[in-house]
């Protein structure tokens, strides 16, 4: 559908990921300098110039699998490690949060304000690093340039494209359940009260005119809700009050975040169909993905700092249990990139595949090394 959806999807999901990681880093008492390094590394990678160039090219939206693989790589762009269960949970939280924001946006154009909320927060995370800040501002300007003047109909198409991507996802998130924005069946609460969107009138009035345009009469009807006038419009500039709260950090109060896997089986039939069906475009997707990651400077964890593991669950036991209990239909089946025999003629792709293979192997060994070091550190305490 819309060819301009991917940048918005990526930036908003990335923003949510950073909120969650920031909260977990603090909850696990990771030392300040290490935590800052993780955030900086991820943000640097996210806003890498080449990566962004590729991202902003008009293209169809990636499949769930392909996008998940991109975020896997992004989450590991630093010295931090995540187990499969934690990565799954992180992705669930990110996607349900953005699904919620897209659904609740008063107008389709407000998705841009949500994106700006994420961008504003990202800039806050790296406000002490001028070089990264520059990169982020560059992207911010690009967002403004490309999206600010899009007509409402195009934004609705973007919104519809995003909703197709999020279709049938009903994972329950405890922070949403607690705040009563999500029901126990996984559906989000759509209030029939509150301010109407900018440009909309409060429902209830009928005006009849004659052929000269003069108003003949007015009648009212019960609106069926409790609506109030719209708030002022948020700012679409580089700086400004966005007014809309969707897309701001809801994790700033440290609360453990759980996701519930049960209760989603009702729609798992269609979900399973999507995951299980053979993807004839898989190879093509791998190539596109490799191209996308072409500019990525994947930090080899063989740096000065030893790796450390972040857990999205309260304890290690919980994490292990979650891995075992995760229903098969909800597994993301991450694509493992392997060099294929019939390489594309594109030199750059072949080179990237080669580099990637190296990195892949390196990070594998680093993973165990990181664990050992952690164990050693724990032993020393």
């Amino acid at each position, binding site marked *: *559908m*819309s*060819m*301009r959806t991917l940048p918005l999807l990526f930036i908003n999901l990335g923003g949510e990921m950073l909120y969650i990681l920031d909260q977990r880093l603090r909850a696990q008492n990771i030392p300040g300098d290490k935590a800052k390094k993780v955030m900086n590394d991820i943000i640097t990678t996210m806003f890498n110039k080449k990566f962004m160039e590729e991202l902003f*090219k*008009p*293209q*169809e939206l990636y499949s769930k699998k392909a996008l998940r693989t991109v975020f896997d790589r992004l989450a590991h762009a630093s010295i931090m490690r995540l187990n499969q269960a934690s990565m799954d949970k992180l992705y669930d939280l990110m996607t349900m949060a953005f699904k919620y924001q897209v*659904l609740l946006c*008063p*107008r*389709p154009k407000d998705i841009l304000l949500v994106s700006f909320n994420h961008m504003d927060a990202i800039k806050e995370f790296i406000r002490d690093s001028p070089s990264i800040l520059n990169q982020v501002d560059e992207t911010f300007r690009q967002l403004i340039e490309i999206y600010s003047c899009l*007509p*409402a*109909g*195009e934004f*609705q*198409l973007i*919104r*519809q494209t995003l*909703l*197709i991507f999020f*279709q*049938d996802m*009903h994972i329950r998130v405890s922070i949403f359940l607690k705040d009563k924005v999500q*029901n126990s069946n996984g*559906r*989000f*609460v*759509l209030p*029939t009260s509150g301010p*109407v*969107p900018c*440009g*909309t*009138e*409060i*429902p*209830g*009035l*009928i*005006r*009849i*005119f*004659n*052929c000269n*345009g003069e108003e*003949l009469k007015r*009648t009212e*009807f*019960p*609106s*069926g*809700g409790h*609506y109030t006038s719209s708030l002022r419009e948020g700012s679409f500039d580089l700086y400004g009050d966005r007014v809309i709260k969707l897309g701001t950090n809801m994790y700033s109060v440290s609360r453990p975040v759980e996701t519930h896997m049960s209760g989603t089986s009702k*729609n798992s039939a*269609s979900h399973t169909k999507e995951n299980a069906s053979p993807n004839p*475009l898989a190879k093509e997707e791998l190539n596109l993905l490799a191209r996308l990651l072409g500019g990525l400077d994947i930090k080899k964890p063989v740096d000065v700092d030893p790796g450390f593991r972040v857990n999205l669950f309260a304890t290690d036991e919980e994490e292990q249990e979650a891995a075992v209990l995760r229903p098969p239909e909800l597994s993301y089946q991450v694509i493992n990139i392997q060099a294929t025999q019939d390489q594309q003629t594109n030199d750059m792709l072949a080179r990237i595949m080669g580099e990637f293979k190296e990195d892949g192997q390196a990070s594998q060994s680093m993973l165990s090394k990181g664990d050992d070091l952690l164990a050693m550190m724990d032993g020393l305490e």
Partner: protein
Amino acid sequence: MYRKEKSIQIKSSASALYSNLSVLPIPEKSLTYFTVVHGNVLNMVSASGDGLNFSHRQLQSKEGSITASSSLIMQASWCVLPSRVLLVLTSQKGIQMYESDGSIMVYWHALDIPETPSAQAVFARGIAAARGNFICVGTSSGSLLVFDVPSKGTNITLSEVLEEHREPITDIASEVSSNKEYIADLVSTDDSGLLCVWKAGEDFKLLNKIPAYGCTCSSVMLWTGIVVAGYSSGQIRLYDALSGVMYAEVNAHARWIYALDIASDSGKLLSGAEDSLVRIWKLSKSTETNTAEIEHLHTECVTDIQICGAKFCDGEGSAFAVTGYDLSEIIRYTQI
């Protein structure tokens, strides 16, 4: 006024697309057909009159006449012509036409798709049958494709391309009343909110252009010469098709309107929007004052669901059906 009936389960949930429900009553067989779009699949279900028997079928979007495609379906609708009924699907790749039960594809039209993807999406959207064996389909470039449909067989031809709109077409509707006295046959609308009124024929004639007022018009109907337009602002407006005079302005919904339908025999209007509400209205014309009026009859709230399709199930408007985003059922209501 209306009460909720037992819902019809569908094989997969409805996608968030304008007018995502089409209904075909088949009174002689005491059946009603429904279609709902989910991604690249069209869910078809036929329900028996007693509400006890259902049979399901799924159609997939195609590329050409055979290859199954992952391209997304934008809309599906039955087109009732004098001698036959066709089921039309529009997607990102083209237009497919099937026999009314979805059993055989009778025609495929490919859209012009550029080699390298441009920022402008390519798709077809907006389907209506127009007087005299025509089926009109809109495109993302603003063109209206007019197809000439023979009374039987597969010899469907593209008869005309109407270039009046500059923005992607959102909806097309033909005159619902069977009364031949109404000159205007068809109305089309686009992302900008511009409304074009046409007379069908070998050469379609543009009768009137009703200017946009700044909001996208996502849904349109035409009844006894009155254009009924649903907008992104949640407003419904009534215009005279030939003169463009605005008869009425209704602050109908708190969010973007996704679907409109009219029961031709009674003049009842149905509107569904992202605000979870479905409303029933009554349209009427006054010949002495030369005005048209609209009054509110009833509202149903489909809790926590953004409506994407709403259709009456009969000409009188005594029953209607509703679909919503992420919902795997067709909700039905009947008049008490």
